[in-house]
């Protein structure tokens, strides 16, 4: 073992006192840059527009009523809100994180004093902005075509925000296991299709055996869809369409409680798991 000892201390070793910059300030600043980049990379714009393709099949089928004032078109359009968060969260986020890690952009940010919390928060904020824009478009469509307006807007926004956080964190976690942008996209396909299939529209969860239905209900997407639809339409849809009852105000919030809890639990779990996120592409790869 070789030791190289320090020379005499220099005359001035008084260090300037430095405050760490707050997480929020860093997060907001990074979000601003995110918008600049979003605008300059057409790919990102494309990925923001991607969820809208889920609206195409709507024009093909003849709608019929499932509940008073709710036909299949309305149900699909309200299904779309959390799907927007899922699509941007699982298609854009893993790709961007894998690429930025590979190009050492994330490492560069970390080594210059940016916290993981600020980086993750900026992604949540920018993805949420995109989701909000899509939400406004679809809400306008619902109002124009069907004269349907959100019944419980606060609950609706809270659940949409929670869904976005969960999907972004999941996207970052997926990126952690990918070597590069391409593999991130391939890996994220599996949870993406799994979650979309089990989001209530394609597989009739009500008709499945209890055990399986309950397991699906513990995954984040079914609670997210039911929260969005219930809050938007003013029905308690948490036990499925067949058991739906009109609900508003406190009743609706109480009915929403378990689903909100499931999303919060996912958020906490994923936040804890993200402590293992590797910022340096060479580590363990």
């Amino acid at each position, binding site marked *: 073992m070789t030791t190289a000892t320090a020379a005499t201390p220099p005359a001035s070793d008084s260090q300037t006192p430095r405050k760490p910059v707050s997480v929020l300030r860093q997060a907001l600043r990074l979000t601003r840059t995110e918008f600049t980049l979003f605008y300059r990379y057409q790919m990102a714009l494309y990925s923001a527009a991607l969820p809208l393709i889920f609206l195409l099949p709507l024009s093909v089928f003849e709608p019929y009523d499932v509940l008073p004032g709710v036909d299949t078109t309305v149900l699909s359009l309200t299904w779309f809100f959390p799907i927007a968060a899922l699509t941007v969260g699982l298609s854009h986020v893993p790709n961007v994180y894998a690429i930025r890690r590979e190009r050492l952009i994330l490492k560069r940010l970390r*080594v210059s004093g940016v916290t993981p919390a600020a980086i993750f928060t900026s992604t949540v904020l920018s993805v949420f902005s995109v989701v909000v824009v899509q939400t406004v478009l679809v809400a306008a469509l619902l109002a124009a075509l069907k004269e349907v307006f959100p019944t419980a807007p606060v609950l609706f926004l809270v659940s949409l925000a929670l869904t976005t956080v969960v999907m972004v964190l999941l996207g970052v976690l997926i990126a952690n296991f990918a070597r590069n942008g391409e593999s991130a996209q391939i890996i994220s396909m599996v949870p993406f299709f799994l979650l979309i299939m089990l989001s209530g529209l394609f597989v009739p969860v009500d008709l499945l055996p209890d055990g399986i239905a309950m397991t699906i209900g513990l995954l984040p997407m079914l609670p997210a869809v039911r929260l969005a639809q219930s809050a938007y339409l003013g029905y308690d849809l948490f036990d499925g369409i067949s058991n739906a009852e009109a609900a508003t105000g406190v009743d609706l919030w109480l009915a929403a409680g378990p689903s909100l809890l499931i999303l919060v639990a996912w958020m906490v779990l994923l936040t804890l798991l993200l402590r293992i996120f590797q910022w340096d592409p*060479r580590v363990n790869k």
Partner: protein
Amino acid sequence: MNTTSQNRSVAIHVSDLHQSYGSFEAVRGVSFTVAPGELFALLGTNGAGKTTTIETLEGFRRPTRGSVRIFGIDPFGQPPELRPRVNAVLQHSGLFEELTVTESIELARDLADDPMDTAEVLEAVVLADKARNTVRSLSGGERRRLDLGLAILTRPDVLFLDEPTTGMDPEMRRETWKIISSQVARGAAVVLTTHYLEEAERLADRLAIMHRGEIRVSGTVSEVVSQWGDRISFRLPSHIRSRELPELPGAELTIDVRGDHQWAVYTVTTGTDPATRTHHALLPLLKWAEERSLDLERLESRPASLEDVFLAVAQGDVTDLVDL
């Protein structure tokens, strides 16, 4: 040395650092310290473990054995006490390609506490005329300079520079040396890796040469070089065979073949006084030549260069660790 005085005079403390990738040990027992206002150069062959050592100091890896401390704090995971005080130029730069030079600097400024002015940074790294260009359009050397600008704008107390001048032309390299020196003068503790030995000679207060995960030689430039010995060499006269050459006090003889000629090379390593040892070795050589009426062609005596030491380390000649 008690802990308080150690903390005051030591910014970076690396002790018996080991770092493995699976079963491959990339760093094998490296130790060194760096004081505030001091530049420590980490030299070595490709794959010697320099970047791995720096990445550990930057807090991206936990040592498999041994410890690293910055101002007495474990840097793993970039704790908040250290975060604003450390910055780095990575071996490869990670910048947002679509931002302009000014936008990149402004982003870095807004993410830091009490940064340098944008104009000041642009001037320091000589990029004022590229301010509106995108990062994507910059040349390799310009990117390197922007990277350095982003690292110094937070006025860090500890600065890691992993091959900061790679890809720069000689003039820009000299400009960059000035920037680095000013950081040291400001009181920053700097760890620099480089493959340009002249750079280390110019900038380093102390240096270490690594090979295969270990520090093989370390000390100040003059310590490293003088401990390596002075060289006396001349073209071997054609009618003299090597075993006829005299033994010189404190010197070892090797025969080099360069072109059509053989050269006698004496390395003078031992001697009571390093300042006069070559004088004492030369005297008997000249006397020997005079007795045989030989004119020693191209006779030369010079101290070893850092390059001599580096090459010896790289060829694995330095197997005993040299401690100064």
